[in-house]
Every structure is written in C-alpha cells, then in structure tokens.
C-alpha cells in the first residue's frame, strides 16, 4: 500500500514537473511572461526532487543496508552542488554568462554520464537495448562534460587560441571509434556473459576514458568565435544524454525534459550556424581564422576619423539613429554609458533603436541581455530581420564594437570568407559612425569595406571614453540652449 502510494506520488510529481517545464519554456515566447516561466519550471523541479526521496521505499535489497549513508550522501551533494552553484550564479557578471552556461551544461552532461556509469558498474541494465541506450547516453554525456569544460576554458580565456595537431580529424575519428569499440565490447560481454577477457569494469573505464578524451580533442581545435555554436551543440548533447538515461531509469520526466532540451539545442545550433552562413559540420571540422586571409590593398580609399563631440552633435540633431552594438561594447564595459547617451538623444526627441545581429556577443542573444542589464527597454531592441529595412531611412547608424556583422563584403565580395552571411545594413544609413579602438582589423581579421565607404566616419578610442565625450558634448549643447 505504501509502495503503491509512493509510486503515485512520484508519478504525479514527475508528470507535474514535465508539464511545468514545457509550460515554463512556452512562457518564454515573450519577455513579459518569461520571468514567470522560469519560476513555474522551478516549482516543477523542486516537486520532482522532493518526490524522488520516495524512491527510498522501493530500493534494491542490496542497497537497503546503505540507506542511511546514501541519504546522507544525497543531502550533502544536493546542498553543496545546489547552494554552491546558486551563489556563483547570483554573483557572476553578465559578460561571463557564456562560460557559466557552458559549466552548468557540462555538469548536466557529467551527471547523465555518471548515471550511466552507476548502471553499468552495478550491472543493472537488462537486455541489449537498455545496455546500448545506457552506453549511448553515457558516451554523449561524457563528451558533453569534457567538451563543455574546454568551451568554458576558451570562453574564460584560460585557453586563448585553437589547439590543433596534424591529422586532428583522423585523431578524433580514432578516439571516437575507440570509445564506440569499447562500448561494443561491453555489449558483447553483456550478451555472452562476463569472462576474464571481457571483465566489464576495465572496459567501462576504457569506454569513459576515450569518450572524455574525445570531447576534449573535438573542442580544442574550434576557434573562440565559433563557441556560440559549440555551446548550443553541447546543450543539445546534454539534453539527449539526459533523455536516454531517463529511458534507462524508466523515468518519463527525464525523457521528456531531455528531449525537449535536445530539440531546443539543435534548433539554436541551426539558427546560429545560419546566422554565420556556415554549416554545423563546417564549424566543427574547420577553422574560421584559417580562411580569413583577404588580400591587402583590395579596398581603395582610407578611413576618415571624426571627433566624438562632432559625431554626438550630429546625432543630437538627427531624426533617427540606429545603434549597432557588438561584443566590443561589452568588452569596454560601456553599455551603461551608451544608454546614458541614448537617453539624452531620446530627451531631444531623436528616434533611437538598437539593431542586434544574431551572432553579436559570445552566445545567442547575449547582447540583448547586456543591453537589458544596462537598463535599455526591450521595445527599443530589434533583431536583424525586423530592422534591416529601417537603415535606408535612418539618419545615422552608430556602430560600436561590431565589425564583421556590418561588413558589406558579405553581400558583394564572393572571395570574402564571410560572403553570404546575413549582415546588418548599417552602410545604407545616410551617415555611419564607427567607434573603434584603432585602425586594426576585427576579431576575424577581415578588412571591413564599410570603414572606407564615403558615408562612414571613424571615431577612434575606447568605447567608454568616446561615449563619455559624446555625453558631455550633448549635455554642453543643452546647457547652452537653456
């Protein structure tokens, strides 16, 4: 009776969790409802975790003597993992969000891989299907763990350049095959029964070792600029691993949550790859930096500098200004100053909009978060498709810390490595100002034709310093007028 009741409670809590997760994600279709979405999903999580303590009523006979220890371990792990990650998550800077997401993602992958390991070491899987699914989930989870950790190291700057060896792809293929082969041996052992040659523990260790090394070897050669795509992929991987382990544990909440996240990660990966005009395979197996060698002197003319104050006054008397922020804005910690300047323009009845490219920032949508953090209302923030036609009628386009995403070569120059990538049409504005540290090339090393265009002027300097000058220039006008 007690066992039946516990099954009902666990089943109901998991069902409720699965529903609340889906509903919560659905609430994210608008910034207005999104905050309630995550809270709703949080309630589902707490319910599912609390209910899972009822598993204690139906545990294996072999585990019964260890019950007290296991409960102690579980509570300790929940407290350390939960409280620790909570405080880090509350404190971390918004610019560091991509590496944070990478870490949390790796943790999920590691947890899924660990569940696979417990099931395998304990010999609990029944039948070939379960064994294969456990291994598959374990493989994907382990790759996601080690891959995400490398992605974290790259985003955090611990590793600051792609590391590649000759024959990298062959090495990766060998590592992957070795992991799959070890998995094959485990399955074979599962069918014929363990023999000294197929002693499972050894092979399980070999399997996980190769899977972890493969995750490292696969991620190391990928350049920092491609990390948004990589995080999306690993997000999908972890979701998939969780879903597969959910099948092994016969837990539909894990299956549904995992598969929803898997689909979400895949969709975001596709969106990101499209925004960079590259295939997913191209991101994973080649490197952007290598192709980005444009012949020098291909562009005629020179960059024309402009004083920050002159540019600011021109914008103050413009009817409409569109701002194109890139990661350079955040790198200079200038978002607050930018919004301060924008508020002055708004007060002077200038129409101001922000135009965001899908790959602005280090992960999808990061620039939107950074602007929101600075206080910019989201109805001023527009995405590429929604704003690209407005540039033609805008008086000024102000480009700050962005480069490739406004390079018209993507539209016209077939030899350019970014040819075909969708760009923001900043060059179509009557006047373009580009705030830039110096005359060098951008992150990808591609010459930007926009900077040499007749309607473009360069405002050189650190973004924050330039914006402070701009604010002073406009404030000075206001005082004079009054």
């Amino acid at each position, binding site marked *: 009776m007690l066992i039946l009741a516990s099954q009902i409670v666990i089943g109901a809590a998991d069902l409720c969790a699965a529903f609340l997760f889906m509903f919560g994600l659905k609430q994210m279709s608008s910034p207005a409802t999104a905050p309630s979405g*995550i809270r709703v999903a949080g309630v589902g999580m707490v319910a599912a975790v609390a209910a899972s303590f009822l598993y204690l009523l139906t545990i294996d006979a072999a585990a019964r003597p260890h019950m007290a220890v296991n409960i102690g371990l*579980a509570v300790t792990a929940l407290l350390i993992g939960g409280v620790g990650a909570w405080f880090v998550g509350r404190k971390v800077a918004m610019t560091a969000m991509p590496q944070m997401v990478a870490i949390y993602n790796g943790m999920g992958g590691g947890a899924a891989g660990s569940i696979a390991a417990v099931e395998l070491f304990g010999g609990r899987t029944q039948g070939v299907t379960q064994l294969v699914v456990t291994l598959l989930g374990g493989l994907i989870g382990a790759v996601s763990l080690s891959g995400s950790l490398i992605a974290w190291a790259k985003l955090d700057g611990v590793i600051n350049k792609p590391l590649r060896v000759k024959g990298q792809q062959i090495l990766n293929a060998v590592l992957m095959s070795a992991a799959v082969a070890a998995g094959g041996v485990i399955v074979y052992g599962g069918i014929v029964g363990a023999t000294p040659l197929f002693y499972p523990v050894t092979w399980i260790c070999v399997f996980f070792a190769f899977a972890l090394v493969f995750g490292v070897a696969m991620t190391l050669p990928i350049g920092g600029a491609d990390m948004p795509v990589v995080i999306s992929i690993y997000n999908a991987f972890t979701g998939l691993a969780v879903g597969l382990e959910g099948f092994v544990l016969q837990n539909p909440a894990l299956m549904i949550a995992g598969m929803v996240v898997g689909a979400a990660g895949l969709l975001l990966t596709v969106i990101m790859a499209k925004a960079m005009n590259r295939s997913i395979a191209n991101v994973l197996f080649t490197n952007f930096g290598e192709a980005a060698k444009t012949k020098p002197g291909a562009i005629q003319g020179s960059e024309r500098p402009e004083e920050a104050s002159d540019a600011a006054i021109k914008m103050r008397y413009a009817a409409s200004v569109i701002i194109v922020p890139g990661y350079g804005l955040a790198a200079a910690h200038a978002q607050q100053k930018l919004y301060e300047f924008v508020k002055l323009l708004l007060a002077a009845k200038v129409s101001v909009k922000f135009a965001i490219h899908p790959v602005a920032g280090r992960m999808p949508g990061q620039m939107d978060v950074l602007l929101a953090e600075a206080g910019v*209302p989201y109805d001023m923030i527009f995405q590429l498709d929604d704003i690209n036609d407005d540039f033609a009628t805008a008086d000024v386009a102000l480009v700050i810390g962005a480069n490739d995403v406004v390079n018209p070569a993507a539209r016209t120059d077939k030899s350019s490595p970014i040819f075909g990538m969708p760009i923001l049409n900043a060059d179509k504005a009557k006047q373009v100002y580009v705030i830039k540290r110096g005359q060098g090339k951008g992150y990808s090393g591609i010459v930007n034709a926009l900077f040499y265009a007749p309607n473009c002027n360069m405002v050189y300097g650190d973004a924050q310093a330039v914006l402070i000058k701009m604010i002073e220039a406009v404030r000075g006008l206001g005082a004079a007028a009054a």
Partner: protein
Amino acid sequence: MSFDIAMTGFVALYIFMLAGFAGWVIIGNVPAILHTPLMSGSNFVHGIVVVGGLYALFNASTPLEQGIGFFAVLLGAGNAAGGYAVTDRMLAMFKTSDAKPKAAHHHGHGKVHHLKKKS
C-alpha cells in the same frame, strides 16, 4: 492496478518523438532577444537529471557506485540550481519603456530630490 511505469520499445520512441517535436515548436516561438535566457533556461530544465542521480545513489550498494552516484547528484544539483539562478537573474532585467518611471527614478535620484526641494 499498477502505477509502475513501463516504457519499452515503441512507447519510448513515441515519447521521444512527441517531446522532441514539442520542444522544437515551443523553442521556435521564442524571440531571438531571449535566446540567452532560453539557453540557460533549457540548461536548467535538463538539470532534472538530478532526479536520476538520486535514484542511482539510493540504489547504490558499493563504495564505487556510491561515489559515482554522489558525483551525479552533486553535478545535477549544480546544473539545476545554477541554471535557475542565472536565468531568473537575466529575465528580471528585461523591462519595457512603460516601466520607465522606476528606471528614471533610479537614475535621476539626486535630481528628483533637488526639484522637490525647490518646489
């Protein structure tokens, strides 16, 4: 009557298919402006793996299994709690222009008081 859940073969595949499809459609409706919180939010959702970790740990009977089970719960709990914390924080930042009085008050704090005193 049994409330034991059994999902084998095709039933499991149906669940995967429907969940994957639902995820694709739901996520497809999320605007690009929310893609970062969406990613950390979906990150939080796969933190449900902590439930699987708890199940594995409760059924562990050797030190090895207990160790790995502990690790699973530790990582899963970190995934869920951290994912929630950052997502909630980010989503709280998104405001409309309508919410401006608050923002204006915050930024122009000194000025507001100054004007009040004058009048």
